[in-house]
């Protein structure tokens, strides 16, 4: 079974803080993704990565950065958290582009920025 884990289920931060969200997958997947999910807006892609040290902007990258130093780990960084970044953050991974694109999700992190 694919297992994707995220470092925190719930997180409360203050405006201006630097926030790190970590995601780890144990199935040697090439591709990893960060989404945020908000009511009425659905799932929106922030960043994704198809290889170690590679990253691509998604649809809403502003205010975020990512890091992928190891294949199994993909981190999302909020450089200076703002209240409009309060959301559910979902990490996902998929095996290999061109052969298996199904994305498997972690349990999510609910982030509240005060």
């Amino acid at each position, binding site marked *: 079974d694919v297992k994707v884990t995220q470092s925190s289920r719930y997180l409360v931060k203050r405006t201006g803080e630097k926030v790190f969200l970590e995601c780890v997958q144990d199935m040697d997947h090439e591709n990893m993704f960060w989404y945020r999910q908000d009511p009425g807006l659905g799932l929106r892609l922030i960043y*994704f990565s198809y290889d170690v040290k590679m990253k691509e902007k998604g649809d809403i990258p502003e205010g975020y950065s990512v890091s992928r130093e190891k294949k199994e780990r993909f981190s999302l960084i909020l450089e200076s958290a703002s209240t409009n970044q309060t959301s559910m953050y979902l990490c996902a991974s998929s095996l290999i582009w061109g052969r298996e694109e199904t994305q498997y999700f972690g349990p999510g992190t609910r982030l509240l920025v005060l």
Partner: protein
Amino acid sequence: EDKVVQSPLSLVVHEGDTVTLNCSYEVTNFRSLLWYKQEKKAPTFLFMLTSSGIEKKSGRLSSILDKKELFSILNITATQTGDSAIYLCAVCDGNNRKLIWGLGTSLAVNP
């Protein structure tokens, strides 16, 4: 602009009913269509469809794709309260590895 539209947005049924959820898409470089179920946590994968007319089935759930008319349906027969969830449809864009997501159908199954 590529898009995925799901209907209805929400649905309330009684246990035992059969429901059909719809997903239509306009994606320039279609690669596959995926269905997910989301309860109060992360989406879990249900089906991936790539070919028209071939039904995928898992228990009481089934799904089919029509690439000519650009839609897919997800059927749930003999619904149970445990089927209450948001059902998400996504299309894989063959150009850029991304999934284009619909907003989901919220299904409530009442006892």
